């Protein structure tokens, strides 16, 4: 019985999770193309500040969770070590989503450029013993116009 539940959850995670991920990736790629004309760059301390009239900080954040299949496959991967592909795509997706959200808001404000973008990643709900694996990813930067 328990095995059956596990199998159903894994199957559900695999099929539905994969479908959702592909959908999400398609949406990310489309929005990335649309917002490509706003450059983003990071400056060093020795460079002059970019010329602009106004500056404002924007934040984009997202909390993404793993599906059941990925959690399981990552747990198996833990036994032998190596690349955990299941988690790589999760974090990549979250990071791009957070960046896009920040960009969308900055564009609404009328930004011509986004400078000094920083990322911050944190694990939330990891204390429950692997039951709930979710990461919070935020991107923040200064929009100028």
């Amino acid at each position, binding site marked *: 019985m328990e095995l059956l539940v596990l199998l159903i959850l894994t199957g559900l995670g695999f099929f539905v999770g994969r479908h959702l991920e592909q959908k999400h990736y398609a949406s990310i790629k489309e929005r990335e193309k649309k917002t490509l004309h706003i450059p983003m760059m990071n400056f060093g301390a020795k460079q002059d*500040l970019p010329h602009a*009239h106004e500056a404002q900080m*924007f934040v984009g954040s997202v909390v993404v*969770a*793993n599906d059941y299949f990925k959690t399981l496959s990552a747990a198996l991967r833990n036994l032998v070590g190596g690349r955990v592909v299941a988690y790589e795509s999760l974090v990549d997706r979250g990071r791009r989503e957070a960046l896009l959200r920040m960009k969308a808001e900055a564009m609404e404000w009328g930004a011509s450029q986004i400078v000094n973008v*920083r990322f911050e990643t*944190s*694990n939330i709900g990891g204390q429950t013993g692997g039951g709930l694996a979710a990461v919070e990813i935020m991107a923040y930067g200064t929009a100028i116009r």
Partner: protein
Amino acid sequence: MNALDSHGLTLTTLEGVPGKEIVEHYGLVQGSTIRAKHVGKDIMAGFKNIVGGELKGYTELLQEARKESVERMVSQAQQLGANAVVNVRFATSSVAPGAAELFAYGTAVKVQ
């Protein structure tokens, strides 16, 4: 949704404010808040964990908390008489099971 309420202060992640000059430094200002998760949201998140994807409840919760930590940082800067906070950075940590700390810090300055 993400708009940071800065009460007229300019916040940047740069060393200064573009187009303006820093006339006075007031030092580091910071703001932090610790939030715990909502039980209902936690259960919903548990379901969502089967198929993966975004946990909207958590995203909102953390955004709200972040806003508060920025507000605290801004009010500290205002007390000092600053009109901008430069080099703003964020940090997040889980201090206790189910609770997250959100921390914002930056340098309070006066610009002209």
